[in-house]
């Protein structure tokens, strides 16, 4: 019953992802004071290492900076929801951000816990109390409650929508009001010395592959040298559905949705043989009517 009793037997472990070394050191120090039993298992400086280390070390709490190189804290969290082993409870998430009115509004709207840099001790203490309570409840329930996880997926989904590419957008332009240029009609794909014009109407699947995007039409496959995020911003989201952080599918091309034994969704296509995974973040789109 008492949250403090559960801590010594199984001390909480935390991971800090913060790209500014001084701020990372400061947060570590502040946490040591407010929460002496917390063990900080790693401090990383970018969004890619954040995911890698979180999966390797399986901490109980994640402190993620929003704006980080590689990928943003939000994107890193979204990736983790997909790759996290189902038998382990998902860690408690706390986002850390410097002044950024759009982000703060979005967090407030989603009732998501966050810390504002410079981190004030009083605020950190409150967050720590909340975290201890959450971890104690989790320990009691022994299993990550599905409802909580769903709620967090929901929050993340909203935040990713409202703050598209917080890491990539220059702060001068309002991330909330993304300029909507005319939707792209043609992809200009460099093939050898040629440029192939591929009508967007023929594109069925777009898959992120490192710095490239794999473009699949009914009969061909092309490589486009640009990040998927940037391409996605120029496509109609009602026609191309995001089903995974690295997959965009033409909605009318989806033929079947099947659930495997682990509860994951997979898409079958009308004209192509590929089976595409659906991440948990986007699974809410596929429900029988």
């Amino acid at each position, binding site marked *: 019953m008492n949250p403090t009793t559960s801590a010594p037997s199984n001390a909480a472990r935390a991971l800090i992802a913060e790209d500014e070394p001084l701020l990372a050191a400061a947060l570590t120090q502040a946490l040591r004071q407010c929460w002496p039993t917390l063990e900080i298992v790693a401090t990383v400086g970018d969004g890619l290492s954040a995911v890698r280390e979180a999966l390797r070390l399986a901490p109980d709490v994640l402190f993620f900076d929003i704006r980080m190189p590689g990928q943003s804290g939000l994107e890193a969290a979204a990736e983790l929801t997909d790759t996290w082993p189902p038998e382990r409870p998902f860690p408690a998430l706390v986002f850390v951000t410097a002044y950024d009115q759009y982000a703060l509004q979005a967090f407030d709207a989603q009732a998501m816990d966050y810390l504002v840099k410079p981190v004030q001790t009083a605020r950190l203490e409150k967050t720590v109390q909340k975290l201890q309570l959450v971890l104690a409840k989790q320990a009691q329930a022994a299993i990550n409650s599905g409802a909580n996880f769903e709620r967090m997926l929901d929050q993340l989904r909203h935040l990713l929508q409202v703050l598209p590419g917080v890491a990539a957008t220059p702060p001068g332009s309002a991330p909330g009001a993304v300029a909507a240029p005319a939707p792209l009609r043609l992809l*200009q794909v460099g093939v050898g010395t040629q440029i192939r014009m591929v009508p967007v109407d023929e594109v069925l699947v777009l898959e992120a592959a490192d710095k490239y995007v794999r473009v699949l039409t009914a009969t061909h496959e092309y490589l486009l040298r640009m990040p998927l995020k940037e391409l996605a911003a120029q496509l109609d989201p009602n026609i191309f559905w995001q089903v995974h952080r690295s997959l965009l599918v033409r909605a009318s091309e989806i033929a079947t949705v099947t659930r495997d034994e682990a509860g994951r969704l997979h898409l079958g296509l009308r004209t192509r043989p590929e089976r595409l995974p659906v991440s948990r973040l986007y699974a809410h789109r596929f429900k029988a009517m």
Partner: protein
Amino acid sequence: MKLHREFNGVSKLRHYLQVVAFTLVVATIQCTFMPDKPYGPPVVYSVLIGTFTWAIIDLGRELIPSAAETGWPHGWQGIALVLVGIVVGYLAGTLLADTLCVHYFHFYPPGALISGADQRTSILITVIAGLVGTFYFYAVNKSAYLEGKMAEARMHASESRLKLLETQLEPHMLFNTLANLRVLIGTDPARAQHMLDRMIAYLRATLGGSRQLSHPLADEFARLRDYFELMAVRMGPRLQYTLDLPVALRSAAVPPLLLQPLAENAIRHGLEPSVPGGHIAVRARAIESAHGPLLQIEVQDTGVGLHSHAVAPLPTRGGGFGLTQVRERLATLHGAQAGLELTPLAPQGTCARIVLPLTLSSA
């Protein structure tokens, strides 16, 4: 804000009262030169002719489309309006005054003829008074219009200055710097002081710099160093930079904070999104051209670079507010002789190159 004129009844009434006062003055002068004649008829004629002329010119110009912005029709339309106003005003005013003088005021018996000399005087007075009056209103109107234009221009200028300030004093940068400073005060007070000094210099330049027209390139490089030092505290080993300014170019005149947006872009779009960070090099060179010596400044970074030319193969890409502002400043000062271009670097990174006429200040 666009200056848009609307029909204004009060100002029209004011114009009319001014016209009536003017016609009374004209009538009085007429009487003074011809003391043998009664005062009544010239007043009636003067006021009526004035009224018709005013109505045609002052109300008529509202109907002419080319008067929409300035309030006065362009070119021949304006001249034609005045001529029509004077001729019609004279004829209609005289006709009505004749009738009134005979049948209402009984100045003359019915059928009395007005002498040819009187008529000529009357026409002359109408033409002169009409021209004087028109010119007066035209001048008043024009100065009001110009004042409005100036207010508009002033507003634009302060608006763009505010916007510039906003991008330079971006809150995210400011609060992150303060957060770092807060940490340093506890752990390394000497470094905190050093950082605070840089920040004070940076703030002073940002808040006051845009008032000056130009300053030596050495000062510009010093401001860049302040900015990079601030960012280096925050980014640690992820930011490396070199500043290369030949001694001969230290006194070259440049607009203050011209390079600031380029340095910020190199960090924000180049190094910040890159996991290992990178290196920024700023170099100044004097180059020769057909039009005389030019100053070339390059800001090169090894960051993530401008991708997406696969989809938008336009050379004009990279038109954020910072770059637009640099281009506008260069164009205002030097026209086509100065310019800014962005080029991707291999294997990765971006180079922003500014060229402007080289002027060495003697100071």
